[in-house]
């Protein structure tokens, strides 16, 4: 897929709870084709402590408004600087990068999308595309507490949403793998979130022989397969998360626990 580098304009920057914000970016020309699971590399110019580009999943693509959404959590200087962007500001992006979640096969119809924390970001775009293709995906979203549950109303547009929080302040108490919805039968699970969560879901999917994909968030320098900094161990040897991933079928991965 062709990659682009260019300046996009901030059409909206919406502050969300718990240090999250939603950046909506646009440009005059139509945005290129982008797939769920793909990511962008964003340049941050005005912050001396930030040297490399910052990596963010594509949260959603609004074709009608020609917008790309990034759901971002402030964790350091780069994301803090980004949170201050205003409508009309311009940002330099390399996009769209990486592979994408694979679409369900003919025999897979019961789909579960599991997200934790800001790892929910790529699942909104995935859910939207699945719904567009006629599937009714279910979303299982986990957070530490009710404040960590982001974009729930967006997810509800595309399927049923189930929630767990570690303190029980919303939904069922515990981790996503404790949720009662997992007693149902699923044909395919897609997961993105903190590594321990993805490992727990992988274990669950393996025990039940459910096809399962995860989206990894290894630290990147180039994002285009040139530096080999972002590798993960697979059964075929080290592979780049930025080009061979970020989405991997969990059967391919050698998890480092």
């Amino acid at each position, binding site marked *: 897929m062709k990659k682009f580098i260019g300046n996009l304009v901030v059409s909206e920057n919406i502050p969300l709870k718990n240090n999250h914000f939603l950046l909506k970016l646009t440009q005059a020309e139509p945005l290129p084709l982008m797939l769920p699971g793909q990511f962008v590399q964003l340049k941050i110019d005005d912050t001396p402590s930030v*040297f490399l580009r910052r990596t963010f999943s594509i949260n959603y693509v609004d074709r009608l408004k020609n917008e790309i959404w990034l759901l971002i959590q402030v964790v350091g200087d780069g994301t803090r600087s980004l949170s201050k962007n205003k409508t009309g500001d311009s940002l330099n992006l390399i996009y769209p990068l990486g592979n994408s979640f694979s679409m369900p096969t003919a025999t897979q119809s019961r789909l579960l999308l599991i997200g934790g924390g800001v790892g929910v970001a790529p699942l909104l775009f995935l859910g939207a595309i699945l719904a567009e293709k006629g599937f009714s995906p279910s979303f299982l979203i986990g957070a530490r507490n009710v404040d960590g549950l982001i974009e729930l109303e967006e997810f509800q547009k595309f399927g049923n949403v189930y929630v767990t929080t570690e303190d029980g302040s919303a939904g069922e108490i515990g981790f996503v793998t404790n949720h009662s919805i997992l007693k149902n039968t699923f044909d395919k699970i897609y997961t993105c979130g903190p590594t321990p969560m993805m490992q727990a879901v992988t274990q669950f999917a393996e025990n039940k022989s459910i096809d399962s994909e995860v989206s990894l968030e290894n630290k990147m320098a*180039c994002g285009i397969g040139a530096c*080999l900094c972002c590798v993960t*161990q697979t059964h075929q*040897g*080290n592979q780049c998360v930025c080009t061979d991933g970020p989405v991997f079928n969990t059967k391919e991965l050698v998890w480092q626990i």
Partner: protein
Amino acid sequence: MANLTTKIGNLTLKNPVITASGTFGYGEEYLDFLDINQLGGICVKGTTLHRREGNPYPRMAETPSGMLNAVGLQNKGVDYFINTIYPRLKVFETAFIVNVSGSTLEDYIETAEKINSLSSIPAIELNISCPNVKQGGMAFGVDKDMAAEVVKEVRKVYHKTLIVKLSPNVTDIISIAEAVEHEGADAVSLINTLLGMAIDAETQKPLLSTITGGLSGPCVKPIALRMVWQVAHAVKIPVVGMGGISNARDAIEFFLAGATAIEVGTANFIDPAVSLQVIQGIDDYLQRHHCESIIDIIGALKTA
């Protein structure tokens, strides 16, 4: 347009801007962002005799104005390069230089000999300075006698332009440059990365799986400039300068210090088309200073 052609040994480059090994893949990764035919040259990824998996993740840590890497020469080996990658590269009109790395003397010799047979590869860059491999690598580059020996042996089997890449992790880079010149190197390139380290204070753990790694980017530029200047004064063969070059002004500084060509490394990660801007900027500078050729500014530093 000023004359940007420059010569390293028998190799004539259409302009003095080369992309640095390990930061530009095989060039193909960048095709969506720039016309690589416009580059003076491309130094491809470190290539070893046998396939190497490299070091475990994490291999990268950002630093103020730079980064540490501990990739550890991950590559599929020289035969894979020859059979699978080289045929694809032949169509491009830029000088592909293979960065040859190894753990033993025999590794270097055998790899260089294999590359010697490739008609579209006009030069190798002998990497005796990789800080990220346990055996060999930098060991050859920090010892004058070992550096001399590996160059002497490779020179016997490699008949095209032989560039030797020097390590900055030494007390006296001049003696090493002189030693490899004496054994028949056509040029030296410097600097490879500086050995460094990063720690996460919260977890009290190192940020790299290998604990130490190689520092690159704008933060190393003053050291690189100093070393290029010292080496350019000490040897007669051309010096290829690199270390933190992010724009044309940085590149000009290296030419003034004595570099005949330059390499752009880490900056490619932030702006994949930066090398073309560097070429354009060098041309602009030469015209502004009424120079007809890049040669006019090589080593033209005014110290008096």
